[in-house]
């Protein structure tokens, strides 16, 4: 059932078995998966059922480092950022969980096998097709590019409609007898017990001035990848450095996926070899798929590189007329490059295809890239977020090396030549790039409390009854893999443990 917290009596005290902070992809999935478990769930959501300026303004904050718009990078109402997510989905690759000698701070305390049992159900929740991301599955639609050299892998994304969790699952929450969803309810502090070994209560406020508390046996923080850190850091009435922050890890290791669209263009003399699924959304069984290219694990290990995922869109035809000087098109030397390709014969007219290529790229975990608290406070008196997102020279080098490696693979294929569009000496701060709105790393997962904030089961190290959900627990950036499918899988895993009384 939904309860508008603005209608509660000031000073109310609400008790339950499981309190979930945030009704986004994680919170809604967890609450739904706990239905019928015998646990009384309270789902606490800052916003209402629709967007409201005043609530959204609670997300405003300051930035240092790379320019970032904290306000537009997420949404603060029932359904969270799934109210405007793009629906691109892929599971995290097995190698992403492993410790990589060339990536400091890498290595999750869980493996892909720990998530595999939950992905098929997560696919259903995100309204995707079968959980089969194999190249063999893709090849049913036509041959993948199969670039030579073993450095570039074909793969694909599946697309969610995209599922708006707040709409798609609204009735489930409304009709569940064992879920109370408090709307317009902002958790302002997670208050630790005096021994700081467990959580005693949540302090909650509405923008209309009501204050009340929620107490639970188990607390789950699922307020999004930036807000999770902000709320822990702002919870300092018992632990002055912030909750779960004795080791100064909360808020550090913030990662995003820089997006370039485009980073490169290529000219191809054999457009028929580019299967249509690379350029457009294509039905694959009950899924909608789009092909992509990424770096192989063997290449990354050998060359010490991070991953980059490339997507592409065939563009205009480029005509080569022998003996006629090339007209300067949008891309210099493009026709000239076409003449170098295998399928072009002397003296014969030829039509090639221009292809634009975008990418999302991985950044390595970096403790100096971090969320802290600003001096200013929001309308509820909570310190605002200060984000100092940093991407390193190593991340840049890795991206450029991956582009060059792709260029070499295309060249060896014989049918394409690639042109990098961003300058080789670009600076992260100056370049025209976007970001994917994937907020990772600020409450990272690690086996040891000295290395991370939560353990393999999402339980906060050193706190008996607090769990954290969402991509803030990501230990590494996982290539450029979009996080939401895996966020949902982790929520299902936690639900199973809670249902089994293991947590």
């Amino acid at each position, binding site marked *: 059932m939904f309860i508008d917290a603005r209608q509660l009596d000031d000073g109310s005290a609400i008790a339950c078995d499981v309190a979930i902070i945030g009704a986004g992809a994680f919170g809604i999935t967890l609450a739904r998966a706990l239905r019928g478990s015998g646990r009384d769930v309270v789902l606490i959501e800052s916003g209402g059922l629709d967007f409201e300026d005043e609530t959204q303004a609670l997300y405003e904050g300051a930035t240092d480092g790379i320019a970032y718009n904290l306000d537009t990078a997420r949404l603060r109402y029932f359904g969270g950022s799934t109210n405007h997510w793009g629906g691109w989905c892929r599971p995290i690759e097995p190698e992403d969980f492993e410790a990589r000698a060339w990536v400091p701070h890498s290595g999750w305390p869980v493996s892909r096998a720990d998530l595999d049992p939950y992905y098929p159900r997560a696919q259903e929740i995100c309204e995707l097709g079968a959980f089969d991301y194999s190249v063999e599955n893709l090849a049913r639609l036509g041959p993948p590019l199969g670039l030579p050299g073993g450095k570039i892998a074909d793969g694909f994304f599946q697309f969610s409609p995209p599922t708006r969790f707040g709409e798609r699952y609204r009735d489930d929450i409304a009709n569940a007898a064992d879920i109370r969803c408090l709307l317009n309810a902002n958790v302002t502090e997670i208050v630790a017990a005096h021994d700081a070994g467990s959580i005693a209560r949540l302090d909650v406020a509405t923008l209309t001035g009501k204050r009340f508390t929620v107490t639970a046996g188990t607390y789950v923080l699922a307020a999004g990848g930036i807000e999770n850190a902000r709320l822990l850091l702002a919870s300092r009435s018992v632990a002055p450095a912030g909750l779960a922050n004795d080791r100064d890890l909360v808020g550090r290791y913030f990662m995003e996926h820089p997006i370039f669209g485009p980073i490169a263009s290529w000219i191809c003399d054999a457009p028929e070899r580019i299967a249509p699924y690379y350029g457009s959304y294509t039905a694959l069984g009950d899924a909608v798929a789009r092909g992509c290219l990424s770096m192989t694990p063997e290449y990354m290990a050998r060359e010490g590189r991070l991953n980059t995922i490339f997507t592409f869109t065939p563009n205009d035809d480029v005509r080569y007329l022998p003996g006629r000087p090339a007209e300067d098109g949008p891309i210099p030397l493009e026709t000239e490059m076409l003449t170098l390709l295998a399928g072009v014969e002397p003296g014969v007219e030829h039509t090639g295809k221009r292809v634009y290529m975008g990418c999302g790229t991985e950044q390595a975990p970096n403790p100096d890239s971090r969320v802290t608290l600003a001096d200013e406070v929001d309308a509820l008196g909570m310190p605002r977020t200060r984000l100092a997102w940093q991407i390193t020279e190593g991340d840049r080098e890795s991206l450029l090396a991956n582009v060059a490696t792709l260029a070499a693979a295309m060249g*060896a294929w014989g049918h394409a030549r690639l042109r990098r569009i961003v300058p080789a000496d670009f600076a992260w701060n100056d370049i025209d790039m976007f970001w994917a709105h994937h907020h990772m790393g600020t409450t990272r997962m690690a086996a040891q409390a000295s290395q991370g904030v939560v353990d393999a089961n999402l339980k906060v190290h050193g706190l008996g009854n607090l769990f954290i959900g969402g991509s803030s627990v990501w230990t590494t950036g996982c290539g450029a893999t979009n996080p939401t499918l895996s966020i949902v899988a982790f929520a299902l895993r936690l639900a199973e443990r809670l249902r089994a009384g293991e947590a």
Partner: protein
Amino acid sequence: MSWSRRDILIGAGLSAALGGAVLWRLSLDEGPGPTVALVDRAAAARIGRRLLEAARPPADGSAARQRIDTLIATLPAGTRAGDLRPALADWVAADFEEGRMVEVEGWYLTRTEADLAILAALEEAGAQTG
């Protein structure tokens, strides 16, 4: 600039000496030289000009010629100009596989293609001036 039998012999001799191989002779007559392997020399010359304008090593005619000579020296004796194109395809593939690439205006092309493009540009300039 055109390639003389002498040029090819000297280049081949240098390569052979470097490689310890027996001196051989590519039966190319005086004429356009190895740029004949290019589908469109004029197009390649435009690439070559950009490489030369960028004036970064190795956009230098002598180095380019020496490298091409070394490659030609690996061809069997009696190889004719018309046979160069498949050989070029192999060299290019090998360059890409080994990551021997040159950048021009953001484009990645192979060392060998860049060398031929430079030679094509120099040939064209020679033809125009001389």
